[in-house]
């Protein structure tokens, strides 16, 4: 595939453009599934989703149904969630506990380490020697690795170790994982929604500081009312305590980091405020991890681990898994991610902030997803196919890090330090450079 048809990346000329067809073309989409979602590392879930012996959860990698299962000894593994006999989906639920999985079609069974336990009526089956000698266990994912409780799998075996794939961006997962000595968990209650637009719109929006005051004025209006008319019934919002998103704010307010393999962060300064549920741990975190790392945990952070994981810590803390279903249809599975062991009051505050802002039944996310759908409709107009949304920050982006990344000992490939008005778009380049790398080549798929 000639990727220059879709990504016009000419840094020496000051040009970076993306063709609308990248979001609509069926051939592009099918190749993304094969090359990106079934051809490299993708996020599966977090370890606490299968906390106890024999716990499991299910997910997908591209078209592949996946089961992540903990065995009796505590080891986690990833398998294709499909019976080797006829291919039927084995585990039917999104999570559960099973010492044994019995296929509901012909009762082949498998233990929690994926080994075949029984082929029903095997001795009466008049099977050939070739069948008797072959393995009837579940197909393991070619690669399965964990980083700090974040579980990843790959349908391609020839990928670098997960740590290399994450690279310096792993330090941003540390900022999530280290918020409690006890680790991370997903708050019970999962929210799934779909939108009628391409999966890369979600990728971009998470990293897009430019849209906030334009897409969310109705939410900002609510924030202003809450500031004017305080009420104990209303949950405190981190936005009320920050100027980072306000169009009139002055001075350095945050910025962006771009990493190899398409991972990006955009961030802003919130400060150490009681509006953030982590506030109760501010002292303990500084003591345990140092002030620099503690301070970073109190920054607004929107992290994407390419291609399908986002951890958004802004209005609350959200873990998102992006699942492309068609060029113009995407499924989002979302959870409130939280440090284990936080106080009941902090947990309550986190949950209320989350519902208010993030849910598809909340006051901000719908204005994002509807905007994606407006983009998808607009992409039908190909008179001028090249989009102009990748140009802000071009002259502000520098190689390497800056004084803020140094505090974390983190070296990104590129960085932008910004006031509230800059709203860098060059971090998107990282997505599309990784995309181009994965999509290039002559093979059929």
């Amino acid at each position, binding site marked *: 595939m000639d990727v220059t048809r879709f990504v016009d990346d000419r840094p020496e000329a000051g040009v970076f453009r993306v063709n609308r067809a990248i979001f609509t073309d069926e051939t592009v989409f099918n190749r993304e599934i094969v090359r990106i979602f079934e051809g490299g590392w993708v996020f599966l879930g977090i370890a606490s989703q299968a906390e106890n012996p024999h716990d499991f959860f299910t997910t997908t990698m591209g078209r592949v149904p996946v089961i992540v299962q903990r065995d009796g000894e505590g080891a986690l593994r990833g398998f294709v969630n499909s019976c080797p006999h006829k291919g039927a989906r084995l585990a039917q639920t999104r999570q559960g506990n099973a010492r044994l999985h019995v296929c509901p079609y012909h009762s082949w069974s498998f233990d929690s380490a994926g080994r075949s336990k029984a082929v029903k009526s095997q001795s009466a089956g008049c099977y050939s020697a070739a069948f008797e000698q072959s393995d009837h266990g579940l197909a393991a994912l070619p690669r399965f690795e964990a980083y700090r409780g974040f579980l990843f799998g790959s349908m391609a075996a020839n990928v670098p170790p997960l740590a290399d794939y994450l690279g310096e961006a792993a330090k941003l997962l540390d900022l999530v994982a280290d918020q409690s000595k006890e680790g991370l968990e997903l708050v019970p209650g999962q929210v799934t929604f779909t939108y009628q637009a391409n999966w890369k719109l979600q990728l971009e929006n998470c990293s897009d500081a430019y849209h906030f005051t334009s897409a969310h004025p109705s939410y900002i209006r609510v924030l202003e009312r809450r500031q004017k008319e305080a009420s104990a019934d209303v949950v405190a919002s981190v936005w009320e305590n920050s100027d980072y998103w306000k169009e009139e704010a002055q001075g350095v307010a945050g910025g962006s980091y771009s990493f190899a393999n398409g991972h990006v962060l955009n961030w802003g300064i919130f400060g150490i405020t009681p509006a953030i549920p982590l506030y109760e741990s501010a002292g303990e975190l500084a003591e345990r991890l140092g002030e620099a790392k503690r301070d970073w945990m109190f920054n607004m952070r929107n992290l994407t681990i390419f291609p399908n994981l986002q951890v958004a810590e802004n209005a609350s803390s959200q873990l998102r898994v992006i699942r492309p279903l068609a060029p113009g249809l995407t499924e989002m599975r979302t959870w409130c991610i939280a440090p284990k062991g936080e106080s009941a009051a902090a947990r309550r505050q986190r949950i209320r902030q989350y519902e208010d802002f993030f849910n598809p039944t909340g006051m901000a996310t719908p*204005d994002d997803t509807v905007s994606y759908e407006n983009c998808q409709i607009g992409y039908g107009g190909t008179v001028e196919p090249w989009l102009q949304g990748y140009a802000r920050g071009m002259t502000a982006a520098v190689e390497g890090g800056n004084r803020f990344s140094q505090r974390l000992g983190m070296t990104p490939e590129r960085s932008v330090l910004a006031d509230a008005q800059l709203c860098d778009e060059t971090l998107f380049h990282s997505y599309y450079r990784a995309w181009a790398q994965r999509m290039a080549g002559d093979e059929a798929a």
Partner: protein
Amino acid sequence: MSAPLTRTAAEDLLYREALLIDTQRFAEWLELFTPEVEFWMPAWRDENSVTEDPDRELSLIYYKGRRNLEDRVMRLTSGLSVASLPLPRAVHQVTNVMVLGADEVSATVSAAFTCHRFDVRMGRTDCFFGRYEYRLAWHSDAWLIARKKILLLNDTIPTVVDINVI
């Protein structure tokens, strides 16, 4: 004090609520709630159960206090929310109304609902369905909604679900 709530009186209140929200008379809709109302749509914990403790588990919507519903109405009608422009056309069908318990000052009512939404923006029709659990309270001269719990059974949300379609 009032006579204990009858099913007919419960139906009158629930149907009126549906009509007010379907005809976008949001100010009148808000007047049906007590100032301390609990407005709650739990999330699903797994295939079989919904979340039960809103302080420790996630809800799709959870508010304590009518003030929060006023904020939602303000956003919905602000003209500043692209997801709410134009407002979808919706009709609620409220059925299976039962008074589970009632005395002179409070009542517990269950009902089933179907809400058909036509998303004018996308030309798309969606249907949401589930059950309601109400706690009603007698406030000087009328029954008001002190608690509304919405069990949304089809919870894979097509883009957006706001307070006007559940």
